[in-house]
């Protein structure tokens, strides 16, 4: 597969390490009342869609960017690649 790195252009997927669903960005608030349940769900529950899937890839043999890749799990078509840092900020991750 080829991944269109937002900074470096098209790179072979072999340069990347796959992690998993983008929801791993949404780490729960450790002080929430139901933090234990939330962390359980965060750690163990994932959707496994047949179709578009947002997933985290790490450019380990490259610039060490974490990317959010939107990939169709049926066709492997990649429709969007973003820097995970930008996605994290957009999802409200702050300090």
């Amino acid at each position, binding site marked *: 597969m080829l991944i269109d790195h937002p900074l470096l252009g098209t790179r072979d997927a072999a340069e990347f390490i796959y992690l998993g669903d983008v929801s791993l960005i949404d780490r729960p608030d450790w002080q929430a009342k139901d933090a234990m349940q939330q962390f359980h769900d965060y750690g163990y529950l994932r959707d496994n869609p047949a179709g578009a899937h947002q997933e985290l890839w790490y450019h380990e043999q490259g610039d060490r960017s*974490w990317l959010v890749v939107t990939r169709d799990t049926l*066709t492997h078509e990649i429709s969007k690649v973003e820097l*995970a840092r930008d996605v994290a900020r957009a999802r409200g*991750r702050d300090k």
Partner: protein
Amino acid sequence: MTQVNRIEGGYVDRRYQCTFHFNGKPMVGHKGDTLASALLANGQTLVGRSFKYHRPRGIFTAGSEEPNALVELREGAHQEPNTRATMVELFDGLKAKSQNHRGSLEHDLLAVNDLLSPFLSAGFYYKTFMWPKAFWEKLYEPVIRAAAGLGRLSMKEDPDSYDKGFLHCDLLVIGSGPAGLISALTAARAGARVILADEDFRFGGRLNSETYALGGMACGSWAEQAVSELNSMDNVRLMSRTTIYGAYDHGIYGALERKTDHLASAEGRPRQVLWRIYSRRAILAAGSTERPIAFPDNDRPGVMLSGAVRSYVNRFGVTPGQKISIFTNNDDGWRTASDLVAKGIDVNAIIDSRDIATVTQLDGVRVHMNTHVVGTIGRKALGAIKLSDGAIYPTNCLAVSGGWNPNVHLTCHQRGRPQWRDDLCAFVPGGELPVGMAVAGSANGSMTLAAAMAEAQEKTLAQLEALGISSKIEEVPQAEDEPRECAAFWHVKNDKKRAWVDLQNDVTVKDIKLANTEGFRSVELLKRYTTLGMATDQGKTSNIAGLAILAEESGKTIPEVGTTIFRPPYTPVPIGALAGRSRGKDFRPYRLTPSHRWASENGASFVNVGNWLRAEWYTKPGEKGWRDSVDREAKMTRESVGICDVTTLGKIDIQGRDAGEFLNRVYSNTFATLPVGKVRYGLMLREDGICYDDGTTARLDENHYVMTTTTANAVLVFRRLEFARQCLWPNLDVHLISTTDGWAQFAVAGPNSRALLRKVVDEKHDISNEAFPFMGCGRITVCGGTPARLFRISFSGELAYEIAVPARYGNSMMAVLNEAGAEFGAIPYGTEALGVMRIEKGHFTGNELTGQTTAHNVGLGKMVSQKKECIGNVLSQRPEMIREDAERLMGFRPVNRSEKLIAGSHFITKGDPTDMDHDQGWMTSVAHSPNLGHSIGLGFIKRGHERMGEVVRAVSPVHGKEMDVEIVSAHFLDPEGERLRG
């Protein structure tokens, strides 16, 4: 033997004579021959024995689809089994042997299997070797294994080298027949970067084997002209002897280029290159493959595909027989007759299954319409054929044509599903093709020359347009729309005699009928039950006929029965090519530590640790075994001073205004309060609360920290930290860089370590206990100005330091430290002594951190802060993970001190039975402690902290041993830690 069957014409170079040996018999051929054409030229029609029945077999095709003519090529370690004689390019000195016979090829002892054929039908093994069960392993399997298989491996290491490479292009054209050539020309003339790949050593595909007129000249000449034009263009890469074996995601193709297989010796060059081709677009012009018709005893040497007969006659200047007959269900078969007649070869008869008018009139050729071949005579060579109308023709070659199948293979490598076309009686590409691929020519069902070329040009122009490359439309060379009518006729009905569908696996019409009767009616089940379409040819000539017969038997249409789809590779790819350079020591490369040279000059033995090679011990003269060395190193370190290269531990440089806060969140214990100039031990958890890694982190400046990780987890921890930094807390001001390779680091441990370092560290730095206390750190200089970092940390439990210098000084530093330490009796120590000393001190490592270990298990439960945000602290508090009766890390010593503990032993309370219900825990690490003089161990045992002094049984059923052990503190030496603070 002379070339009895060599005739005029073709593309062999008669100026070059190649002498070769088949089964030890010398023969001659020419440059441009394949082994198959040269064997035929020499009249060698018997070339092998069949897989199951050991029937005599001959050359059946002229291409990569060959099911029969598999040979062992070359000798000694270079011997390669199952090479297709039809693809082997002849060279001077070639040596080949036939396969799959016991005794000689002519008198195969296993031919007895053919007489047993009534018993050896489909599913024979499944049905027969079921009982008694015990016979399978000892008797049945060894006998079957010895009899099965085709060629033999040399069992020697492959002496050839293989390489890998990467190529990029605008348009990849797969196949260089008429469609491929016109496609490559169109794209190349428009300026696109083109790769044209063909599995053959000669470009042109079927154009080399046919006698059509094309562009006003012989089609072979047109191909030569096209190739020479492509050759002259800088934007074209011509790759002959290159099989595109797989279509992968996003326009990536796998290609195997055979670089030196056509030479007597590779002369040190890579034999084959595995290419990864990145194409923006691709044209699949893989052509089509002819299929046979099944009829009784249709497997004799001399029965050959009709198009292959044309190849041998037209391309190679060889006639496969002196008296040739033709059996066909389509117009193309007639072309073979006319080509043969034109060459002056004796054609007996054309037998056409169709009830139609004669296609052409040929002088001296008898025509039998609406007639079948119902039998053959001859065993090691075809002698005569019998027809359904009673006629018998003596003939030594029967050309068979059952129509042509488009080569749809690569279209199926992702989501493509072939579609049936009734008018062609064949599957054509269907469903979703691989991204960027278009199919043209007979691969797409455009079966005539004119149609194939017109389609290829049209599809190529569309591809170029999609790429934004403008091109002008040129006229496609004038070509024929030759007659290609074909009837759906698959096999001659006969209930008594066997008619072969799959020659390679000896699958007959009867086997397919039997499979249907027994309920294996899905095409996937049929394949697995009968082995139809398996092995090296993957059923290129047999799949469709098998499917058609199954359809007929089950009363369905072919599309209703379905089709098997294809996976890569298109043709076999040697494991050596897939491995490339990653063999032997390069299979898993390792890194050398900075002091490697010094260590190897000073008696070190080395061991692979993670991806490093580390010194495991240093042998001194007179030491009889590793234990002598390790005991001495561990003892001397505790008595005086030892030096160990610890560069392999991961080092991560962490800087930024929020670096302290970042550390607070990735470590389970507090780091925000660490003062400048101090080091702290840190424990990392996974998000699920399990221990992940540990190490020390030093604060060099206000906003500058240096973290160490374990050797094994260096890469993983760094990856996680980047994840935390970019994905979890993107607004923290923190930056990371791995400096593992940048700094050479040495542990200097033992009571004399300070005295030793005093001689190396420049005078202006005070390293006294007061100025540089335990867990202190700082930047210093050594040896008169060389920059260094000093950390007062201890893994051995002794007064100890770790000193780091830029990696390029590492080897010298090791020498300097050892020289400076000579007056104290300093010794270098390796990983084994390191391990002994850490067990003596109760430090846990990978043996203990198994991925199931909690901080609570190792006695560090209180270290996990609940007062701050950090990875893992929430889930670490799950009730099961902090159970009161959980296993705790403890020390163990044998009650009988002379006994040796066994790692992996399980603990059983005295008086309890030895079973899993009474399992109390297990021993994780053991060592002989030279300082205590007996075996010691670490392990996990339930409620261990409350059971000090208790004697339990340590049982190792694997070793058949057990012994009584006492539970003690994991800190065998200096439990108060006075030494390291001294």
